[in-house]
């Protein structure tokens, strides 16, 4: 029997995903028509041996409850949400709920960060882990460019055994192009290692350099890094598609790849479709609209005559009026784009000319204090008037615009 644990953090985290995370908790933000972590759940449920999924985070139970019950119904598997009473870090939360994870004595558990998206190769990872009896943790690894690798957890491994000999989280200088994807297989014995790490943290806390919470523990720095070089930590390098979802711009990129994975899903074409496109069955799309590539359209959305949408996510109950164009943008729930308006952003995809390049999670502002070009985001309930242009701008929820905007954040 196997289990899976998905770490989703809390409302204090994922601020770079604003304003999208102002209306919907980031783990529930729909990508390719499904909440971000539903993709994790779907991948876990494909393994028949996986009997329970535990989601750990500090969002309130009421925030998560509707989603959890929906998932239970859809996948017929035990799915529970465990709320941290206070953010305990990636390791602290896991350790806090160790009894829940150990219950039923699973052979191992998958550990998945909620803020990544991937074509999760869980079966392959589990087989790799099973073949190495002394492995406590197997890390899914992927190749990055030399330059970008330092923004991730970097691993050096012994090539013959794939044992990790050195692990540094976000190093200052170049270590390795093999990076940690935030997807793991763990044996239950890892909790012994965590107990030792936890003890060290506690000792440190009460010996005078106590800061933050005594239960705080980083999975990467306090558990993985010390395990390196002990023949208990392994890396399985895969070439599946993988990306972090940190900034709002990465949502569009993730959308494209998930749509590609689920290509067979769209069965009816209400209008001229350029694949890949997801349209929720309750969306009303005029037959003269042209949609795609890389578009997800949520429930209850209305797309009027002569509309063009590409490289965008349209959230539930939004309306796109006649002749409007939406590209490289996210249109929030209940938002409305007026007729003949143009809502346009700048894509922030990885450099296609560099092998293994990842998304650059660029900050909102550059060194001159100017807004970096990014996708355009309309928060929930935003109204864009007819015949205007909104270029590389971010509009916070419920704002009714009265004119065109370019390169601005509109509070």
């Amino acid at each position, binding site marked *: 029997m196997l289990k899976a644990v998905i770490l989703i953090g809390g409302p204090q985290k994922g601020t770079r995903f604003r304003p999208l995370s102002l209306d919907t908790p980031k783990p529930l933000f729909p990508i390719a028509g499904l909440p971000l972590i539903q993709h994790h759940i779907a991948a876990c449920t494909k393994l028949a041996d996986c009997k329970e999924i535990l989601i750990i985070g500090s969002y309130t139970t009421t925030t998560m409850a509707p989603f959890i019950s929906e998932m239970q119904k859809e996948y017929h598997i035990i799915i529970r949400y465990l709320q941290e009473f206070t953010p305990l870090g990636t390791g602290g939360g896991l350790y806090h709920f160790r009894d829940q994870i150990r219950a039923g004595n699973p052979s191992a558990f998958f550990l998945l960060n909620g803020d990544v998206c991937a074509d999760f190769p869980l079966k392959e990872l589990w087989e790799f882990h099973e073949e190495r009896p002394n492995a406590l943790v197997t890390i899914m690894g992927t190749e990055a460019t030399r330059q970008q690798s330092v923004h991730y957890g970097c691993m050096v491994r012994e090539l013959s055994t794939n044992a990790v000999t050195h692990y540094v989280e976000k190093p200052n200088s170049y270590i390795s192009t093999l990076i940690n994807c935030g997807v793991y297989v763990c044996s239950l014995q890892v909790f012994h290692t965590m107990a030792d790490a936890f003890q060290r943290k506690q000792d440190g806390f009460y010996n005078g350099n106590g800061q933050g919470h005594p239960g705080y523990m980083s999975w990467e720095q306090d558990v993985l890094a010390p395990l390196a070089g002990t023949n208990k930590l392994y890396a399985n390098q895969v070439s599946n598609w993988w990306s972090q979802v940190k900034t709002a711009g990465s949502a569009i990129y993730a959308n494209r790849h998930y749509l590609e994975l689920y290509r067979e899903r769209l069965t009816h074409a209400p209008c001229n479709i350029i694949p890949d496109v997801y349209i929720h069955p309750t969306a009303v799309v005029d037959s003269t609209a042209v949609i795609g590539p890389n578009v997800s359209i949520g429930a209850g959305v209305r797309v009027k*005559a*002569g509309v*063009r949408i*590409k490289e965008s996510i349209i959230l539930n109950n939004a309306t796109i009026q*006649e*002749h409007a*164009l939406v*590209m490289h943008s996210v249109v929030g729930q209940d938002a409305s784009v007026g007729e*003949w308006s*143009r809502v*346009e952003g700048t894509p922030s995809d990885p450099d296609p000319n560099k092998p293994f390049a990842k998304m650059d999670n660029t900050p909102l502002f550059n060194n001159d204090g100017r807004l970096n070009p990014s996708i355009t985001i309309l928060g929930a309930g935003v109204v864009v008037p007819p*015949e205007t*242009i909104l*270029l590389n701008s971010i509009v916070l929820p419920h704002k009714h615009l009265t004119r065109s905007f*370019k390169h601005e954040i509109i509070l």
Partner: protein
Amino acid sequence: MCGSDKKLGEIRALILVGGYGTRLRPLTLSRPKPLVEFANKPILMHQIEALVDAGVTQVILAVSYRAEEMEKELTEEVSKLGVSLTFSHETEPLGTAGPLALARELLSTSPEPFFVLNSDVICDFPFKELAKFHRSHGKEGTIVVTKVKEPSKYGVVVYKEGGEIESFIEKPQEFISNKINAGMYILNPSVLNRIELRPMSIEKEVFPFMAKDGELYAMELEGFWMDVGQPKDFLTGMCLYLNSLRQKNSNMLYEGDCVVGNVIIDPTATIGKGCRIGPNVTIGPNVVIEDGACIKRSTILRGACVRQHAWLEGCIVGWKSVVGRWVRMENTTVLGEDVIVKDELYINGGQVLPHKSIALSVPEPQIIM
């Protein structure tokens, strides 16, 4: 028609066509400026028709460039109006006065006064009133003046109550007058004695001396006036012209379901379903506007095509150009002849030279070679 006003007799007019029309590029790279259609009619034809209406029987075009092209295109058109067209060809640019000296023989064949006008001016041409006023004061010349909002950019004209001009002041720092030279004159042949055959400015080297001698009068223009020599003013002039049509000749304006405000559409143009055209739009012959396009404050020249769902404001679309589907163009964008703008692009203040194909958006004003 002409000659009905016998008192005017044989009246001649000289139009200063001049040089390359660089300010109206990229349109003038394909056609001489006087032939660029303003409200579906070459700029020059607006002037010639008004002159004919005032009894002018001989029009002299002072040109320094591309005369053959104009001659070919205009001669037939103009002969229908019962007026003769003569080309006075400058081998070197002679300014605004020099061309009068070059055409001296033609202008001095009769003692009657003649009209002189700059070729960029669009207004309710007041030639009859001008001739009448000129005769009433009996001096050597009369210039038309028009009121402008910001006179400091121009040279202003200061004149007495009856119209006698006292002085010209270039770009005044303090407010002196809001009347400027409108680029239309009537002059007696005797004025030719003040002009030499060399590059010479009528505004600076002729008029001030006539004013000093008390021989120059000003007549104030009624209605709108615009120098349409550059794209921005071309579009402003078009709005003023269409507004004037609404008041004086509203049957020339197009009325229809998809039209808002003052719009001219050539009968050979086709307009798709669900469009919104206007206010202030002129659409030339054989233009195709596809379904769902929205066009405001723009001129679409002969044979151009605006494809589905495009949105245009403040644009001049050159002959045979194609504006792609879902394109947005604004802010005095000018497409030269035979330009293709690919689907879904945004063009903000682009000036696109002829025969270009545009495949990338132009988010800031720019010239595209």
